[in-house]
């Protein structure tokens, strides 16, 4: 792990370099880039040019015809994606996006301004695909494609979290996430990926989830969480796996099964489903809600996502319920039906508890768990005791993908406010459609990238610190598995007294279950408000 400076020592320098941006040379300083994809992971995922290499090497062992591969790859994608063609042509470099990127704000590196991140690709496009660029070269904003340009692409396209914040402010809707996605696709043609992504992709292909959890281990883990629930509430929940004929297939990021604090969120789901008597099943084959394929290529996204509908069809369920995840929900909302639909073998989702028909998922047949719970609460189906969360002064982090790739703002707030009495919003420039990324999205939540993650997370952390100072906020809730992990690290670094919670963990705390014993602790085993004294007596 790269050495991480203390927060007070992290230099923020916005001085612009003397050299213009067309100079492609990149300084691969530790802490600002991710390890190269290992050969075995590229091979396992079926990706080309698998080999041993490192970004710090001078020779990246590119295939001999790498230029041709890139130009052909660009041509193909220009013909396939109107977005790319338009975004290559219409930027006016007004600069509105410049200070909207969390990586620019946290690093001061001008190539992290969304406009320049795109210009890295645009300059090559002009040189090869426009007449003006071919004739006038750099005067027309064109650059020659060199190995340094490829290295620069690798550095900056894996220094963008595809959060789309810049796209909200762009007067033409130019979406850097789209450019980064296609940029990464091009890099993958040369075998240039990062291992955190390629490893997860390879795992997901072979074991059904990013973490490589095998079927028996997945079941064991969920049953362990069921034990934990029994210890806290006295109620035994009975999850099922790969069960044919269940009404609902529930899919959530594997992080919820294996990584704290996501596991507490998983406990919340299990408690809720049990209390509602839901006829649902997990699948060990489709045991991943997230999709690191999305951070590799459109094709890889489709390959990994295909398991959801395939498994729903095999098990014969009626509809799909999806857990709390960020990019999973962009994939479900904007890509899944197009890529792997039509899901005409499923039914339009209908809550078996309230009878509500989810018209807004009429085609994909997949409902967000927070929509599902909001509907339960609205219809008075849940007995809740929000006072159990009274030790938490809560704020809420909108995930990038559910915000700008879906528009999912009110449902989570409705649920949180129903289960927490104390809630304060962060400043309006940092929430909802203007929300700031955790700094670790799009497959960049690896250890070696830690300095950039803490830099990129600065705007988010700053907004949390603002409400911590003003309202005494000590808890940050979110509906994204990467957030639950990444924000925990981010808070430890910038705002150490704030703890990160998944929304359904809070639901699980507040949920009054039939036949439960008196609760003295929350799902983490910490004493509930007012129970601290009895806890002390036991010691």
């Amino acid at each position, binding site marked *: 792990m790269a050495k991480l400076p203390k927060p007070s020592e992290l230099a923020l320098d916005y001085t612009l370099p003397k050299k213009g941006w067309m100079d492609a040379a990149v300084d691969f300083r530790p802490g600002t880039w991710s390890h190269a994809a290992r050969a075995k992971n590229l091979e396992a995922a079926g990706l080309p040019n698998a080999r041993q290499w490192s970004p710090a090497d001078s020779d990246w062992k590119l295939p001999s015809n790498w230029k041709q591969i890139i130009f052909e790859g660009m041509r193909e994608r220009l013909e396939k994606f109107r977005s*790319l063609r338009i975004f290559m042509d219409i930027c006016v470099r007004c600069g509105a996006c410049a200070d909207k990127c969390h990586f620019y704000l946290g690093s001061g590196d001008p190539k992290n301004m969304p406009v320049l991140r795109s210009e890295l690709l645009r300059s090559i496009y002009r040189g090869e695909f426009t007449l*003006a660029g071919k004739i006038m070269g750099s005067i027309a904003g064109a650059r020659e494609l060199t190995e340094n340009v490829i290295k620069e692409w690798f550095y900056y396209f894996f220094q963008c979290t595809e959060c789309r914040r810049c*796209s909200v402010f762009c007067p033409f809707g130019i979406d850097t996430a789209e450019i980064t996605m296609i940029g990464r696709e091009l890099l993958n043609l040369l075998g240039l990926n990062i291992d955190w992504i390629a490893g997860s992709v390879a795992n997901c292909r072979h074991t059904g989830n990013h973490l490589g959890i095998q079927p028996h281990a997945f079941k064991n883990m969920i049953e362990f969480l069921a034990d934990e629930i029994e210890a806290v509430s006295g109620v035994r929940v009975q999850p099922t796996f790969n069960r044919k004929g269940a009404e609902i297939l529930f899919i959530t990021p594997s992080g919820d099964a294996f990584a704290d604090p996501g596991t507490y969120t998983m406990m919340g789901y299990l408690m809720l489903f049990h209390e509602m008597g839901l006829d649902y099943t997990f699948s060990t084959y489709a045991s991943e809600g997230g999709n690191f394929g999305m951070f590799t290529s459109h094709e890889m996204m489709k390959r990994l996502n295909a398991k959801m509908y395939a498994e729903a069809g095999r098990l014969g369920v009626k509809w799909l319920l999806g857990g709390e995840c960020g990019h999973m929900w962009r994939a479900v909302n904007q890509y899944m039906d197009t890529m792997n639909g039509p899901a005409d073998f499923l039914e339009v989702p209908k809550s078996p508890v309230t009878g509500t028909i989810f018209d807004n998922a009429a085609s*994909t047949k997949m409902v967000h768990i927070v929509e599902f719970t909001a509907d339960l609460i609205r219809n008075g189906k849940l007995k809740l005791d929000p006072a159990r969360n009274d030790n938490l002064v809560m704020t809420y982090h909108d995930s990038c993908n559910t915000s700008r790739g879906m*528009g999912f703002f009110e449902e989570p707030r409705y649920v949180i406010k129903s289960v927490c009495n104390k809630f304060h919003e962060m400043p309006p420039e940092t929430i909802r459609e203007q929300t700031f990324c955790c700094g670790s999205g799009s497959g960049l939540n690896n250890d070696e990238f830690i300095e950039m993650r803490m830099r990129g997370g600065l705007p988010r952390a700053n907004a949390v610190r603002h409400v911590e100072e003003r309202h005494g906020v000590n808890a940050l809730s979110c509906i994204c598995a990467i957030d639950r992990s990444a924000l925990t690290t981010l808070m430890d670094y910038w705002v150490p007294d704030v703890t990160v919670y998944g929304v359904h963990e809070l639901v699980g705390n507040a949920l009054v279950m039939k036949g439960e014993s008196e609760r003295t602790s929350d799902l983490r085993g910490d004493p509930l408000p007012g129970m601290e004294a009895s806890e002390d007596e036991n010691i």
Partner: protein
Amino acid sequence: MNFIMSLVAVLALVLTAFLGIEAAGLRTFFSMAVPYVAFTLFIAGTVYRVLAWASSPVPFRIPTTAGQQKTFPWIKRNRFDNPANKKEVLGRMILEVLLFRSLFRNTKAEIEKGPKLYYQWEKWLWVGGLALHYSFLVILLRHLRFFTEPVPFFVQALGGMDSFLQVGLPGIYISDSVFMLAVIYLLVRRLIIPTVRYISLPGDYFPLILMLAIGVTGILTRYFTRVDLLKVKQLALGLAKFQSSAPEQVGTIFYIHLLLVCTLIAYFPFSKLMHAGGIFLSPTRNLPNDSRIRRHVNPWDYPVEVQTYAEYEERFREKMIEAGLPVAKEIAAGGPAVYPLTKK
């Protein structure tokens, strides 16, 4: 450097027109050939660019959602920032195209020691952009009076309104002043904000300087050199009817103005100025966020390699059975598991 390069290019154009008229007397060339060539390039270039964009399909529905999605009836949704159907998209597009909705969101981030970030009110770019585009539109429409006989009512009315602040004779057009101020603001902004200067290409300065020069020469023809507008009108009408002859005595400043305008027109489709057309086709703005409601079809969709459940079970069957997980095919005694590959 990029600024200087663009400035020199515009000055060269001015000089070309000046020498072309004063020294070479190429009146017909500058008043007839140049406008026709420019106009042809504009039409052909624009058609080419739009067709090129339209020839690439929209495989996925990727609107940037900037407001609450359509969900339960009891949750208020945002129809303009997160449209759920084509009608609402029209609303979003009208706000984008006519009022620059997205640019209106602009803020400015400031960082202080701590580090502490602040986001400040910053609408000047929006004001400047809007001022430039609308004053340009008014000026363009006003120029219709040269190309029409009789002059349509709305053009006359527009001219009247535009010059209601009667200062001297002829009246000063408000649009001229707004246009000049907006262009100067955008140019100065580009030069003095370090980040914007850093990202600026020659292609960013050139149109601004060109428009500045067009504004200056236009104002000169009207207020200072007093070009014979009747003769200009004869020329314009002739051009429009394809039966023109070069007028005898129109000031050289007019030819400079004309060449600069023709350059802008011809340059338009081959430059970033095509953003005017691109905004209409931008997939993050012109699509409804309805892909969970209605299926969006990708025309180039193709089948991909997927690890099937059968392959998965093949790999983990023993472990699954041991863990009590249901399997499609039990392990046959004494032999390797065989999964029925044929579909029912």
